[in-house]
């Protein structure tokens, strides 16, 4: 990418950058939100497993 060409992009109107910025934000949120959800699911699954193990120990005692 040449410097004059790159600088030409700086002259794009605010509407173009706003549109690309919004689309980028939505892509970002669409990536981050499921990853957080996935992490929460794993945490809950691990907690459930620990609870089950505790119950089994209590029953054994």
């Amino acid at each position, binding site marked *: 990418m040449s410097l004059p060409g790159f600088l030409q992009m700086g002259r794009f109107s605010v509407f173009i950058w706003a549109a690309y910025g919004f689309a980028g934000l939505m892509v970002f949120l669409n990536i981050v939100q*499921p990853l957080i959800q996935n992490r929460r699911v794993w945490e809950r699954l691990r907690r459930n497993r620990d609870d089950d193990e505790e119950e089994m120990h209590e029953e054994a005692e």
Partner: protein
Amino acid sequence: MGKFSRLACVTRLIKLIHKYGAPKRFYELAGTLTPWFASLTTLLFVSGLYLGLYWAPPDYQQGNAYRIMFVHVPNAWMSMMAYVAMALFAATGYIWNVRLADILAKATAPLGASFTLTALVTGSLWGKPMWGTYWVWDARLTSELVLFFLYVGYMALQASIDDPRRAAHASAILAIVGVVNVPIIHYSVYWWHTLHQPASLTLTSQPKIYITMLIPLIIMSLGFMFFYLTMLCVRTRSEILWRERRTDWVRKLVESRS
């Protein structure tokens, strides 16, 4: 193709659906496909942005403002495609009680809603310099807004019912009924005289866009399609894990990762 070979194809397709329709099998398949889809999405987005923002020449009438098309049009297409996919998944789950189809429909809704919102916002940001206004109650814009409300309604209905089976059945009806809006969006520019221009790309005629503008548009559209597939896999995998938490394979998986 003979009658028997057609029958063999259908039988094979049904076998494939049954094979990969099992949540465990799909979980593994989606895990394998996700990195490939993600890499392809990144490659397509990077090349599409380079071609769209730098390589493609300015338009003789719209100047550089037309470049909004490279994010607006793919999102508008994906908003409709995702809705049709969601309705098909929902119908499959409703009719044949396929659990995976319910999960896929649920995972598609937030993605489709975000595509629709992006299409609406980028469209109004394109409308301001071109039409002089951010919004008009034009048939295309209004029907696209209705699509957004359908997605939101579907997600609200899913969230309001605790039992996943009942939630899937209730929201499937909304998804199936709402699919009537998709042809309305598509044909709105032909049925009514609207401010929104008719389609520049159709399957049956020559494209009305110059090739240097068409290539980035196609690349960005493929990028958003693979982005949808990537995130669909990610969302479906975590939903499968939670719904199948009482099964042996998930217990073993949790133990192996602890």
